[in-house]
């Protein structure tokens, strides 16, 4: 058992770090701000979400054994049951083993605040902030076990908005979610709405944030990029248009460019188009693509068809293509990543209102890499098959939630064989309890190898008048038996660990029409 009284004491002891003070200050500031805003605006609403987690992991550490103790010949030999790598002329052979258990206790506090109607129709201020502290284990030497563990305050979004029937204007930290992905920026946007066909035209721009995170690329969090870290932020700007000519048709096109503020070149320049058409209630047709103008290469593309040919049966078919996109501020674009193309077929069955099954299969094929592989070759194919089941019966006066899934994947990259099951019950409208079981085996890229990881966990969730409180705990146990002779393969890092999470979210502001 990995959680001992001693380790819990260590977690507690770390609470006394200076970061605790910052976290407490963040809580206090956030709390106080709610009261202050009430004085400034006629209406406001806030959503507060807090989670505290406990996560264990074992680092890989390099170890060595005397070359004379190794059995066999060649680069890979055995020392006891451990596979080691030996080099000619070196008196030691090397291997990796699991290090000490490291743990992290990240605490995240999200506060989203809406203040509106300052006496002006459609005027709103919105702020979304994240306070974070990571009480990491000192045994792994630094505080970056949890991503962004030392970034204690983040402004996810914060803008002043004027929203009318024909236009919407925003100033502040805003973001754009589209076929190009998630991009944040400090600047402004303006949307003009042309009603007859629900056409929207948008222009947006400002100083860009790094992709997928609300931080400038010049911030300290990217310092380990070294010489590749840009010294100046990018300008980001773009244009978006969308239309909904009929209630069952949507189309969007977007163009976006990022350029360094010294205008020394282009970082990214891309366009994307998305379209959806629902010609009949039971039929859906979706298409999307994006093109990288900076490299002159196509990125993602897809065509999805969904058809419910019986009220209880539906089918889905997808054709897709994927090629990753990198900024021209990295060298990765010069390494010529190749795309893959593939298809996915899925079939869903809902024999009863409370019972649903789905099975699916998928195949990918990568393009020609022209790499030339004299020493090592991998496949350029990938297969996946999976299925899910959901059952929500009412029995013995209780509503049950039973969800299970299984998938197997083989081909390029990881090979995985995984299943999970959750049995939940809701003895009360506001209370749910769940017991969950998982098992998986991952080969190659993740060295669970021939062993298996078993997971057993539970969760509880209570939705109150004010919000929701929840708790979950999971225990993972790594069975490292690989044969009758070797019951515990020392060459495979032990993956056994505990994980636990506690969360609380609640709402502030009045709304009698809202039911819990």
């Amino acid at each position, binding site marked *: 058992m990995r959680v001992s009284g001693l380790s819990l004491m260590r977690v507690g002891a770390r609470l006394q770090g200076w970061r605790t003070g910052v976290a407490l200050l963040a809580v206090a500031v956030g709390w106080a701000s709610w009261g202050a805003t009430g004085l400034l605006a006629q209406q406001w609403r806030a959503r507060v979400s807090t989670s505290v987690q406990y996560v264990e992991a074992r680092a890989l550490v390099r170890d060595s054994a005397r070359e004379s103790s190794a059995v066999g010949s060649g680069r890979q030999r055995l020392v006891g049951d451990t596979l080691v790598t030996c080099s000619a002329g070196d008196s030691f052979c090397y291997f990796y083993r699991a290090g000490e258990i490291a743990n992290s206790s990240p605490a*995240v506090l999200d506060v989203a605040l809406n203040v509106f*109607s300052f006496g002006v129709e459609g005027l709103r201020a919105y702020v979304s902030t994240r306070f974070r502290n990571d009480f990491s284990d000192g045994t792994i030497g630094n505080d970056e076990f949890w991503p962004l563990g030392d970034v204690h305050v983040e402004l996810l979004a914060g803008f002043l908005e004027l929203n009318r029937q024909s236009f919407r204007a925003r100033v502040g930290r805003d973001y754009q979610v589209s076929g190009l992905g998630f991009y944040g920026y400090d600047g402004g946007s303006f949307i003009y*709405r042309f009603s007859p066909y629900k056409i929207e035209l948008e222009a947006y721009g400002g100083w860009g944030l790094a992709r997928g995170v609300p931080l400038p690329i010049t911030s300290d969090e990217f310092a380990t990029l070294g010489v590749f870290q840009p010294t100046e932020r990018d300008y980001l700007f773009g244009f978006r248009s969308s239309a909904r000519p009929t209630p069952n048709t949507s189309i969007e096109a977007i163009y976006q460019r990022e350029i360094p503020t010294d205008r020394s*070149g282009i970082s990214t320049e891309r366009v994307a188009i998305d379209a959806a058409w629902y010609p009949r209630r039971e039929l859906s047709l979706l298409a999307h693509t994006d093109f990288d103008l900076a*490299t002159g290469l196509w990125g993602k593309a897809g065509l999805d068809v969904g058809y419910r040919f019986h009220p209880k049966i539906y089918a889905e078919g997808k054709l897709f293509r994927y090629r990753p996109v990198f900024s021209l501020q990295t*060298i990765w674009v010069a390494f010529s990543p*190749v795309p893959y193309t593939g298809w996915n077929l899925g079939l869903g069955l809902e024999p009863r209102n409370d019972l649903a099954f789905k099975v699916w299969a998928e195949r990918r094929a990568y393009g020609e890499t022209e790499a030339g592989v004299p020493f090592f070759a991998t496949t350029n194919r990938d297969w996946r098959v999976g299925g899910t089941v959901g059952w929500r019966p009412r029995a013995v006066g209780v509503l049950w939630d039973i969800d299970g899934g299984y998938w197997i994947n083989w081909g*390029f990259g990881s090979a995985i064989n995984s299943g999970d099951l959750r049995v939940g019950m809701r003895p009360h409208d506001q209370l749910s309890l769940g017991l969950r079981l998982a098992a998986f085996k991952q080969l190659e890229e*993740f060295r669970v190898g021939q062993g298996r990881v078993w997971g057993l966990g539970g969760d509880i969730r209570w939705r109150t008048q004010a919000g929701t409180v929840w708790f979950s705990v999971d225990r993972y146990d790594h069975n490292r038996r690989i044969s009758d002779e070797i019951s515990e393969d020392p060459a495979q890092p032990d993956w056994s660990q505990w994980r636990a999470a506690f969360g609380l979210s609640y709402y502030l502001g009045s709304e009698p029409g809202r039911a819990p």
Partner: protein
Amino acid sequence: MSLYRASIRALLVVALVAAGAEYGAAQTGQMPKPDFHNTADFLQTHGQTAKADITFCGACHARDYCSRCHVNAYDVPEIQALPSDPDVAAYVAGTEWPAPSTHTPSFLEDHRAVAAGATQSCTTCHVVEEQCLICHLGSETLERPRTVTDVDLYHPYNFMQQHSASVWNQEAECASCHNPWVFCYSCHQTLGYAASDGRTDTGFHNKDPNFSFGHGQAARQGLESCAACHPQENCLQCHSARAGRNINPHGPGFDAEKLASKNQNLCLFCHFSVPGGE
């Protein structure tokens, strides 16, 4: 002493959170209905009241309360002037309201075009800022228990434990929501998964000791995964015209002239001068 102080601080955190929750409960409690809501023609006349001063309605009601009946809510500026209720999408996902026909079984993955083409109609049920950000900006909660009404979770249960297979096969564009440098690299580096001290037969490389000598195919097929552990300097040890082994990394589709025209600094990372340039 230290444990005592830590306990006091932990209790303070709990107390602050609990106090906030209690405050929230007080704020969301039932309030008495105004007298004029009880008039016989209130349902017929409340629109005029709302148009005269929607902020008066907004003292108690959110936009969603109106849109339960007003299906054209997103075309009514007075209703749009109200904020939305973060819980409404959860109600809709349950049994209270039917989901629109666009919400197919794969809608979570395929909602992009509909969301873009009907931004205002989404807000009838969804609080766009909060629900976009929860998924698109990388939730930091691993195993929040979910129920049928949970609509703000993208990854399935146990995903963190198994994410390597999904990442290697690029089943979705991870970098779209998770910046690889801060979400992947820092953790992999800290835990030793990105060690680059010469050993080539780690599990991440198919346990093949010759992986580094023939990794070109794997790298071009899964370059995002490489970048999740390896800094760019690792590659330049061999793939640079300025130092190392001068191994050319350029492959199919590489257009030096085009890239140089877009950003010459990119070339200068590996070359003394822009190839083909002046």
